[in-house]
């Protein structure tokens, strides 16, 4: 066997930690494959990249990528990443986590990081449930879908994540599914190359919990469903992209705009007030 990597994405993976813990048919692994390619395409050196995760099945990504990574406490990935991004502005900071982690226990951090336009990319694997703890209802579980804590169907309205991200101030917002590997890779590349707060929602199968409880077949069945029921509509108004239980879904790039980042605003204001005596923070070396 030669020394050459067997698969182009293996460079980004801690292969010694394989096999990973994800179930057969789970969508998280596919998203990581897209992510590895996006890093190549965005031409980000590994030593300039930090991956931050919370807790949960998607939170395991930080443990499998072969770059500086940070497996934080549940819900706090964005808060950790905020500190990281502001202390080292030259690095690319990516938060890679799940819907429960980012939007239930961690929801507060999301809205404030987007509002401040902190320079980071947030990738949310949305599989509509808490996977690691056994399939409970989350703020993204569609109305009427079943979960272990809503056995007769969810009666709470769910978040429309792209709409939330746009309203809070994200500069780049896109949604793709695990079926759309090429588009997803391109969107990740774009998000990684965008200055400011970028957000990607990745709709993903969780055959073990969400699908089994809702009788939605295996991982492939969900990918087929994504294929059959998604419509690409770049530039769609995010107010129209909410999701229902097994509803048709609009995917695409929804928001691509520019706003000054937190650092831009901070430096501009301090310069205005302090004049030449202000020395902008370049980041720790």
């Amino acid at each position, binding site marked *: 066997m030669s020394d050459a990597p067997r698969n182009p994405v293996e460079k980004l993976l801690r292969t010694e930690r394989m096999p990973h813990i994800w179930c057969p048919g789970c969508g998280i692994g596919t998203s990581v494959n897209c992510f590895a390619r996006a890093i190549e395409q965005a031409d980000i050196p590994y030593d300039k990249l930090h991956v931050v995760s919370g*807790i949960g099945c998607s939170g395991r990504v930080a443990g499998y990528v072969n770059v500086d990574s940070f*497996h934080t*406490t*549940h*819900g706090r990935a964005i808060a950790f990443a905020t500190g990281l991004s502001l202390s080292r502005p030259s690095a690319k900071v990516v938060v890679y986590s799940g819907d*429960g982690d980012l939007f*239930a*226990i961690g*929801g507060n951090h999301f809205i404030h990081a987007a509002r401040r336009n902190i320079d980071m990319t947030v990738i949310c694997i949305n599989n509509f449930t*808490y996977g*690691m*703890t*056994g399939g*409970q*209802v989350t*703020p993204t579980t569609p109305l009427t879908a079943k979960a*272990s*804590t*809503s*056995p*007769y169907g969810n009666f*709470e309205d769910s978040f429309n994540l792209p709409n939330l991200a746009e309203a809070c101030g994200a500069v780049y917002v896109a949604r793709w599914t695990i079926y759309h590997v090429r588009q997803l890779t391109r969107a990740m590349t774009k998000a990684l190359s965008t200055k400011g707060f970028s957000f990607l929602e990745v709709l993903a199968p969780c055959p073990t919990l969400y699908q089994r409880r809702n009788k939605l077949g295996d991982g492939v069945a969900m990918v087929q469903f994504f294929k059959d029921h998604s419509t690409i509509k770049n530039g769609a108004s995010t107010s129209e992209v909410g999701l229902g239980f097994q509803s048709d879904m609009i995917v695409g790039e929804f928001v691509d705009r520019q706003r000054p980042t937190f650092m831009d605003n901070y430096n501009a204001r301090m310069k205005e007030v302090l004049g030449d005596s202000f020395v902008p923070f370049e980041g720790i070396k």
Partner: protein
Amino acid sequence: MAQRKGMEVSIAIAEAASACDVDCIAAYPITPQTHVVEHLAEIVAEGELDAEFIPVESEHAALSACIGCAAAGARTFTATSSQGLALMHEVLFIASALRMPMVMVVANRALSGPINIWNDHSDVMTERDVGWLQVFAENGQEAVDLVILAHKISEDHRVLLPIMVHFDGFIVSHMIEPLSLPDRDEVKKFLPNFVPAMRLDIDNPISMGPVGMPTVYTEAKMVAEAAVRGSYGPIVETFKGFGDMFGRHYRPVETYRSEDAEIMMVTMGSISETAMTWVDAQRERGEKVGLVRFRLWRPLPIEDFKNAVRGAKALTVIDRHFSPGGPGGPVSAEIKQVLYGTADAPQIVEFVAGLGGRDINMEDFDQMYGKTKAVLAGAPVPPFELIQVRGGHHGEI
């Protein structure tokens, strides 16, 4: 009397909460507590229990919602573990200061970091000072019984305090154990309907949670001290009432083969059962050993403990948590404080073991016992020792 049947302990705890006819449950998923609230969600959804199940967005929200429920006059239940309990930290003080009756079961688990989902007592011990009553179960039957007892104690108008029922994560929570589950009618006889002493009521408005200026804060803390310490009498009375009715008897401090023991092990939680087996084996070999366990951790049953260890020459205290850079584990520290100045107080040899899911086995007990015997034979009392460490307490890892 209910039949004993094999059941996962978490499921049995949920059934016990249901038999207590709780009105509100607010909880967030966290391993290894999850099965408790998942099963309660099912019970509520099936219409077997007329209650509100609130799947909140975090543990901080869970306990806050529980306070809201209790303030409205609802019988309130929740469950958590580890990081979840830690996230509740600031709200724990509020629940006890507001004198909100409620029951929380805690599937004890280590705190991060490193991230660890397995059993020890670091989650409990870091919440020692929050003003809640705290009891420990050693097995599933005790956990079930203590949930029922906890509601009754918490709602007693002489008590009116929230209470935590601790049971070891995975080792007890995921165990399938034969246990006797009191049915709803039996429980109802023991635990009548909840009568709130004070609640938010639009016809009689009150304000809960106001500021306590320096002029009243100290008095408020005195009230908290009196309330927690004063709960001891009602707790013992409630244990007795439960024993009379269900035939299972609980005491603030439990002992095992301790009568003429020269050396006593001091334990809490499920390792007590391993310790009993070990004590039996030692007794067969003629060793004069016994066991003391704290059932009640808050209020600390000081006199019961002193009585239980009277006559012993040495105590081997096993903590499942410790304070790095501090004098040792919290249980040892409290025992030393309690016994300091007592005539003929036993020597205390303290160990920290069973961290983050590491089992404590017979050899570990042998080792701790051996070191305690050495002290009785004249060796100097060693500082606390973290056993089971590769390379030894002060060695290289």
